């Protein structure tokens, strides 16, 4: 296994540099923190110099995922990059997967073909399957090689594929059905890592009694953070700014200094 050691302004910065050096997407590297100022949190929020050792875990992760599928025992990875998702499908995901596929409509088949056409340009082997269809959405799943490439950095490629598939299929409003694109449970894993990040940041906000701003998230990611912290009375979440510059701020609520709910609340 090849290791690189890099230093960055923040943990994320260091991780991104390492990924570039290794030539693999950020999701595909494992990291070990060698030195950390102790102030940075996920690189989203300040911090000083961070030194990390990184390696590609492309193969090991794929193996791990296979095991997850077979045993449904969520294994733990000792150290993961912040963006790397937790490979532990929840019970509901397992239930969803075992749901009957149901009759695929013409629309779903059309969506599958459109996505297959797009994916074909990126990988010869990848195939698209209709995973689920309800009255308002069609869930498509990509199978095959080039997982890292097809998912992309922070799901960028997957999001682009999903966005374009929606545009191409839902040309007329009346018969529109939301199309969701997933690969190797990436969405679920991303949601879990966002939730745990939200809970951890929420605890930090309560402890320090200072708001924390999270940048570089899309609407869907922000929504997950909002929903995760919604039931925590000691916290308030807001999105500020416009377009690409939109940020999410977690505020502490209530001045009662004696009323500290450290580590409590925060919906799971």
């Amino acid at each position: 296994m090849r290791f690189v050691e890099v230093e960055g302004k923040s943990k994320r910065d260091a991780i991104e540099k390492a990924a570039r050096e290794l030539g693999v997407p950020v999701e595909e590297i494992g990291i070990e923190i060698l030195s950390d100022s102790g102030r940075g949190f996920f690189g989203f929020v300040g911090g000083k110099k961070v030194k990390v050792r990184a390696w590609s875990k492309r193969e090991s992760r794929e193996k791990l995922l296979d095991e997850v599928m077979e045993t449904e025992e969520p294994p733990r990875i000792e150290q993961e990059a912040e963006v790397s998702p937790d490979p532990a499908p929840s019970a509901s995901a397992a239930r969803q997967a075992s749901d009957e596929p149901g009759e695929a409509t013409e629309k779903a088949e059309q969506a599958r073909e459109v996505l297959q056409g797009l994916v074909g340009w990126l990988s010869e082997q990848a195939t698209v399957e209709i995973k689920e269809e309800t009255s308002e959405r069609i869930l498509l799943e990509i199978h095959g090689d080039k997982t890292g490439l097809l998912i992309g950095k922070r799901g960028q490629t997957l999001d682009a594929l999903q966005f374009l598939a929606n545009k191409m299929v839902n040309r007329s409003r009346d018969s529109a059905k939301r199309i969701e694109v997933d690969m190797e449970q990436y969405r679920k894993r991303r949601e879990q890592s966002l939730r745990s990040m939200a809970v951890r940041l929420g605890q930090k906000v309560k402890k320090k009694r200072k708001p924390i701003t999270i940048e570089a998230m899309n609407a869907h990611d922000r929504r997950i953070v909002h929903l995760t912290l919604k039931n925590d009375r000691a916290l308030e979440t807001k999105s500020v700014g416009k377009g690409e510059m939109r940020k999410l701020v977690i505020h502490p609520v209530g001045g009662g200094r004696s009323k500290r709910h450290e580590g409590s609340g925060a919906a799971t």
Partner: protein
Amino acid sequence: MAESVRELVEYLAKVLVDHPEEVRVTEVEGENTSVLELRVAKDDMGKIIGKQGRTAIAIRTILNNAAAKVRRRCVLEIIE
């Protein structure tokens, strides 16, 4: 890769616009970089660019990935 990145852009554009017959894509090849010039009908510009440029960004993301496969860089220019 059988199809070229030029064909990818043409395919995407033709599905997204109202006037596919007016879609033109020309490729200007450089040493490592290709510039793809996409021309569409005037009323289709919005469809290609999208709200906040989201469609254009999505097209570029897919394009860059497809180009990386053949070890090239691609720049997409959208021209009215």
